[in-house]
C-alpha cells in the first residue's frame, strides 16, 4: 500500500499554489490565530480571513445567531478590525508557511477599491476574495452579487486595484449563477468562491418577531450543501475559471463532492464551530480517500461528475 504522501494534493486556485485544496472560509476562522490552539494551519491549503472594511466596524446587536435544522442562521454584519489593524496586527501573527487570503466587504464600490489597494502587495496576502454579498447602498440594499450590472462594476474596479490573484465570492441569492459567473470571468477575476450563505428568516412564534435582531440572516451548514453543489456545478458549466466550493463541508467526502462538481478547492466554514480541527481532518481524509480509490492527483477529480445512468 502506498503512503498517503504519495497522493498529490496540490492545486492551483487562480494563480495561488495550494499544498492541498482545503481552506477555511471567511468569517468562520477569525484572523487565523483563534484556531491555533486546535489546528496547525499549515496542514491546510490556507485560510480566508474575516472580511475587512476600510474602518473597524462593530456589527449587529444580539441576537446574532440562531440554530435551524442542520444549519446555522447568522447576521453578524460587518464586525471586523478594519484593514489597517489587519495589516499591522493580525497578519504578522499568522505563522510562516500559512497561505492567507484577505476578504473584502464594503458598501460602495469605491470603498472596496480602497481596501483592495491597501491589501494589494502586502507580503503575506496571497490573494484577495471580494465578498459580493454585501448590500449595495446605492441600489437600495440589493447585494452587489445579485445584479450583473453592479457586479460588473465592482469586479472591474477591484481588478484594477490589485495585480495579485482576485477571487469573487458569489451570492447564492440569485436566479442565474452562470450569468454572474460569466460577468466575473469577463472582468478578469482569477477564480470564484461559492456559495456565500443563503438568505433566510427564522421566527419566534411567542414574540411574533424574527429571531435575529437584523431580521434576515444567512443560512450555512450541512442543510445548504446540496444547494451549493448545484450552484458550483452550474458555475463550472458557465465559466472556465477555477472555483472554490463552499457550503456545509465537514468531511473529505463532502469536499470530494464539490471537486467532482467542478471546484478546484473548497472552504470549510460552519463545521469548524463544531470541531475547530475538522478542516485538518478533511485534508487528511482527502489523501486517504484518493489513496483508497487509486487517484494519484486530487486535481484529477475536478469536474469529473458522471451524468447519465
Amino acid at each position: 500500500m502506498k503512503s498517503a504522501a504519495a497522493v498529490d494534493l496540490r492545486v492551483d486556485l487562480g494563480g495561488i499554489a495550494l499544498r492541498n485544496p482545503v481552506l477555511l472560509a471567511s468569517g468562520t476562522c477569525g484572523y487565523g490565530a483563534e484556531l491555533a490552539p486546535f489546528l496547525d494551519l499549515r496542514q491546510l491549503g490556507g485560510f480566508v480571513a474575516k472580511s475587512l472594511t476600510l474602518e473597524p466596524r462593530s456589527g449587529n446587536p444580539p441576537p446574532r445567531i440562531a440554530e435551524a435544522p442542520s444549519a446555522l442562521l447568522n447576521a453578524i454584519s460587518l464586525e471586523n478590525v478594519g484593514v489597517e489593524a489587519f495589516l499591522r496586527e493580525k497578519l504578522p501573527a499568522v505563522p510562516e508557511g500559512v497561505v492567507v487570503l484577505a476578504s473584502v466587504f464594503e458598501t460602495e464600490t469605491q470603498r472596496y477599491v480602497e481596501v483592495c489597494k491597501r491589501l494589494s502587495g502586502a507580503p503575506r496576502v496571497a490573494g484577495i476574495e471580494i465578498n459580493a454579498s454585501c448590500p449595495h447602498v446605492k441600489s437600495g440594499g440589493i447585494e452587489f452579487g445579485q445584479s450583473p450590472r453592479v457586479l460588473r462594476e465592482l469586479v472591474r474596479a477591484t481588478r484594477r486595484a490589485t495585480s495579485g490573484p482576485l477571487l469573487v465570492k458569489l451570492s447564492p441569492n440569485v436566479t442565474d449563477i452562470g450569468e454572474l459567473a460569466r460577468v466575473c470571468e469577463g472582468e478578469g477575476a482569477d477564480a470564484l468562491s461559492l456559495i456565500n450563505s443563503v438568505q433566510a428568516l427564522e421566527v419566534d412564534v411567542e414574540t411574533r418577531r424574527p429571531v435575529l435582531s437584523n431580521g434576515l440572516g444567512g443560512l450555512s451548514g450541512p442543510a445548504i450543501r446540496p444547494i451549493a453543489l448545484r450552484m458550483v456545478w452550474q458555475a463550472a458549466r458557465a465559466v472556465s475559471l477555477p472555483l472554490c466550493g463552499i457550503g456545509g463541508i465537514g468531511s473529505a467526502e463532502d469536499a470530494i463532492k464539490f471537486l467532482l462538481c467542478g471546484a478546484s478547492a473548497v472552504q470549510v466554514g460552519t463545521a469548524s464551530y463544531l470541531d475547530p480541527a475538522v478542516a485538518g481532518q478533511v485534508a487528511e481524509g482527502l489523501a486517504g480517500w484518493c489513496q483508497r480509490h487509486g487517484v494519484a492527483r486530487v486535481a484529477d477529480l475536478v469536474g469529473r461528475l458522471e451524468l447519465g445512468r
Partner: protein
Amino acid sequence: MTQPPPTPAPLRLEARVLASRNEGGPQHRLVLGVPGWRGFGPGQFAMLSPGARASVPRSDPLLPRPMAIYRARARGGAAEVEILYKVCGRGTALLAEALPGQRVGFVGPLGRAFPAPAPGERALLLGGGTGIASLYELAARLAPAAPVTVLFGARSAADLMGTEDFAALAVELRIATEDGSRGARGLATALLEAALAEGGPACVYACGPTPMMRRAAELARARGSRCLVSLENHMACGFGVCLGCAAPRAGGGFALVCRDGPMFEAGALAWEGLA
C-alpha cells in the same frame, strides 16, 4: 483591579461518558472522562456536542452547547469532569440521553475565569437557578482559605441543584425559593442585600438570570463592593470566531461572551442592552 487568573490552553477531543444521572426533574449530572486534562479556572466553560462523532454522525441539532464546568477531579493523566445542567431544549435532551461509554465532543476549558477576591474582601457567591453550576469550583477553591458565603436562589426546591455538594464544603450556604418550598421565601437578591449589609467590602460573584445579575450589580455598587458576573449566551463556536455571542459594552461596541467573558466586571457591560 484583579486580573483573571491564567488558564490552560483548551483541549479539543471526544470525551467518554462515565456517568449520566438524572438528579430530579429536568436536572442532570454528566461525568466525562477527559484525557490530557491540564486543569481549568473557576467559571470557565466547555462546548459539548452530544453524539457529534458517534457511529452515526449527527447534524441536527448542529451546534455544540456551552456548559459551565462544574468541577473536575484528576485521575492519573485524565480527569473526571462534571457538568451540572438542566434539560431545556433538544441539545440538552440529547446530552441527557448519552449513555456511559458513548462519546461527547468536548472543546474546553474556554473563557476567562473568576479572579480571587482582593485581600480584605468577603466572597459572596450568588447563584440563580442553573447559574450555580458556574460557582461551585470557585467556592471549593476559596473556602479553605477565607470565609465564603453562597447565596442560592431558585423558583422552588425542585429547581435547586448541587446543594449537597455545597453543603459538603466549608462555606455558609443560604437558600431562597420564590415559592418558599425551601429556605427563605423570595429572591436570591434579597439574600444578597442582607449579606452585603452584614459586613465590610465584599466581592460579589453572580451567575444566573440577567435581571438577577443586574440587581446584584446595583446592590454591590450601592455598598461600594465589587461585582463580577458570568454571562450565558447562545454560541456557535465558543472560541471567538463565530462572533455570535455579542454582549454590549458600557462604552459602546460589543464584547464576546466566549472570549472576553463569560466573566465580566458588572460595570463593563451595558445592562439595558442585555437580553
